[in-house]
């Protein structure tokens, strides 16, 4: 199945991409994608959990299981206001 991963602000800068279409296995969780990112990006490697995770524009736990077509976003701590 396919999911779309979104990255914002400093995370986008670290990873060097704002969006990725990813082919994943059934049962994959948001945190599994995060761990894949950690493996290749030293600046986030120390972080066992993403700052915030949203699936289809709702905040969720990173252990949330993804489904085909889901849009998963890793979100740095927000600083609006």
């Amino acid at each position, binding site marked *: 199945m396919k999911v779309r991963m979104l990255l914002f602000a400093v995370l986008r800068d670290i990873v060097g991409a704002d969006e990725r279409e990813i082919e994943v296995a059934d049962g994959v969780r948001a945190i599994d994608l995060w761990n894949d990112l950690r493996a290749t990006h030293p600046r986030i490697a120390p972080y066992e959990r993403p700052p915030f995770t949203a699936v289809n524009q709702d905040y969720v736990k990173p252990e949330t299981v993804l489904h085909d077509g889901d849009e998963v976003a890793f979100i740095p701590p*927000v*600083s609006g206001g």
Partner: protein
Amino acid sequence: MTFLTDDPIDQQALIDAVLRRSDGALALFAGVVRDHHAGKAVESIFYECWRPMAEKEMAKIAAEVAAAYPDAAIAFVHRLGLLHVGEASIVIACASPHREEAFSACREVIERVKKTVPIWKREKGPDGEEWVGWQGQ
């Protein structure tokens, strides 16, 4: 309601949007770009946003604060893009028959916006630019 704008915020329009003939109190809050942060000089801030989710979160905040303060009328707008010192990044207007609700609703909105709305700022000063808060390692 429009929650996001790329232009300077029209404060009077927000006041006009909330103030009813039955209101005796208007509380307004503006977040403003200031010339320092964490000991460093700041010249400007770039606000980045994930628009669809930010709009969704802001609509949720508006609905939940309105439910918590049923006598209050609430409007707020966050500005995006490059802002200089003295410019407002967010303006919140709350009107109510009595001041208690107007103040509380206004305060509640800014606290919630700062917690959950996907907006991030990158500060620029004499020493360069950087994202505020979490930056990885």
